């Protein structure tokens, strides 16, 4: 793994590298170099398989973290490429030309996080949400509880108790 990273650093600017396990590491690359770097990993280093593409909303830092997890079938190692993109007008270059299935991940990220991938086929088509009008639900500023209270009616017969209030009623009702 270390040699792969050293090779990579000759061609690309790698912001940081963290070896999580013997067969798993993560590097951070900038948005601009990421697609070139991933292409290089696929075509020259042998990371033939895109395992997944996912995102994390670091709302406090005002960015999304994209993770491209790549697998090397011969060396049996995984390498995650992390890319930080701005939360505002979130947009990333598409990699559907590298792996056909990337279009599905990108469509999902478009819908769940509101991250756009211009040029990715069907990226604007609804994926699993039907008639969604709220902000994308995986964004951390989406209030899941408020949404579920608003959308799903409470079933009859439900009741709850606040622990402190209930204990007062039971243990010291007159104080």
């Amino acid at each position, binding site marked *: 793994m270390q040699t792969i990273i050293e090779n990579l650093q000759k061609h690309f600017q790698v912001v940081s590298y963290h070896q999580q396990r013997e067969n798993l590491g993560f590097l951070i690359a900038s948005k601009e170099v990421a697609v070139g770097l991933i292409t290089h990993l696929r075509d020259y280093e042998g990371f033939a398989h895109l395992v997944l593409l996912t995102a994390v909303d670091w709302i406090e830092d005002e960015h999304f973290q994209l993770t491209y997890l790549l697998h090397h079938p011969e060396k049996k190692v995984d390498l995650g490429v992390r890319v930080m993109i701005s939360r505002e007008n979130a947009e990333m270059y598409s990699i559907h030309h590298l792996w056909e299935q990337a279009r599905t991940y990108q469509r999902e990220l478009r819908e769940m996080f509101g991250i756009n991938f211009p040029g990715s086929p069907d990226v604007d088509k609804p994926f699993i949400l039907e008639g969604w009008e709220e902000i994308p639900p995986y964004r951390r500023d989406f209030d899941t509880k408020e949404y579920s209270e608003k959308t799903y009616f409470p079933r009859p017969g439900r009741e709850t108790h606040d622990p402190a209030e209930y204990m*007062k009623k039971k243990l010291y009702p007159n104080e």
Partner: protein
Amino acid sequence: MAKLNDILSPFTAWKHVVREPVTIKDPLNREAADRYRGFHKNDISECIGCGTCESICQNAAIDLVPVDGVETKDGDSGLRPRVDYGRCCWCGLCVDVCTTNSLSLSNEYTWVDEDPDNFRFVPGAENKSWDSREKGYKKPGNGYELYNPKREAMEELEPEKRDQSFIEIVQGYSKEQAEQEADRCVECGICVATCPAHMGIPEYIKAIRNDDLNEGLRVLYDTNPLPEICGRICTHKCETVCSVGHHGDPLSIRWLKRYIADQNPAEEYKKILNTENLQPTGKKVAIIGSGPSGLSAAHYLALMGYQCTIYEKLPAAGGMMRFGIPEYRLPYDQLDKDINYILSLGVEIKYNVTIGKDITLEELHNQYDAVFSGTGLHMGRSTRVPGTDHPKVYQAVDLLRDIVLGKEIPLEENIVVIGGGNVAMDITRSLARLQKQKYGKVGVLATSLESEDIMPADREEVIEAREENAVIDPGWGPVEIETEGDKVKGLHVVKCLSVFDENRRFAPKFDEEQKKFFPADMVVESIGQGMDLSYLPEAFKEQLDMDQRGRILVNDDFQTSAGWLFAGGDIIQGPDVIHGIANGHKAAMGIDKYLSEK
């Protein structure tokens, strides 16, 4: 084109009617993956009904409900979570946040039932086929906690720097530390019932998180007018039931209270607490004793517009808080900050006045509309073993009081203290400091009936006493103090095997064969204190309802059978500061009720 498609598509769908269904019944009845998140399990004997699972659930799928056979008691709400599977999305956050690790998810995910209401049940209380399954999702271990299980460390003065002086040991939290610590609170409120004053603990911790310390002070004063004091020396029973303490350190509730009080400047209290204009009722209340219960009663009565006068036997206010607790635990300026605020509400203290001597109880009754008595426990009890009547055998409370009064106290190079409570630790550590100042070395040993594990003193008191080079040798019963003329030679003890019988009654058992001798030039007894009710005239005492042990009986309003006389603090309940505060508060409300109805 799109429109035409919209019209036709419902019809084209009919072609699927004759197709083989894609979905089939699972022919293998396969088990899910080992860590699959299926139906909930709950170990209801471990669960304390803190409700953090309910609070975190993003789908409002969990309710807390009473369950047959589960009792509401200290540290346990008696409630248990009920899950509505119509809403649960199996995310497992309820498991991740569970403070007792009682909640988990089994890997069972198939369950067929005709009645939808069956999909709402209390895991653990209603038997399910997956209850005994080992596989499933459990709270992940280290590093994945949703709150920090480790307490923010408190800076303390090092033993070498503190053993010669009486300066405060505990340094207090910084803003960052307090906010970090407050961030660990899950706001369950389990602690509130255990606090004798039922303080709004989650609310004031929340105020720290929101950096709104004025609001924090208001929450404190709702139930406790001595927060600087309690923030330092409270017995903090609340921390023993803290839900976070089940798998981690409990919240540092006491130090957080201190942080709020420390950060609010005394001169702004009246503005923050909105007590600048109190409406007088014209009625007067006399209070005997300026300890925690008397001060607390005076505070809440003053807020309601009563003119309060406190009669104090000693030349300064605070009772045991000043004359019992050493300065290194509770500095006088902090004590005075709390007391001066109460005085600023119009409360008056008459010092050096002894009831029954300088003024009688009858006179108070005649001059005031009501009287509150909180005279506390100031008479040291004796072991009564042979030798205790020797002049070089002293009582801890007397010595502690004399230290505060600035009197020179008898101080030998080798001292034995009998007792294992906080007062015993207070006198041991005070004597150690004085010895260090006078002789340059410490020669004090404390011994108690109770073995180390059941010593009544706070654990940190014992640890710190040892750090200051005092010797603590618990588990011995005193037999005799050996004396020779005007000198004390030491204390003979035998091994104490147990202190209480099976009914938790005091019945110490000894092994007379295991003996020890602690050489000493002076002995201090500190095995508890009794009350002095001599200010109650005999004829009056006979009319008053009292129990067989000579304690005054009071009702829920802390009112005695005399009607006009209320009582609280250590003579009624405790002994500790927080019970006194709670008693004083309730008595103040009781006095208000009594005088309003009169």
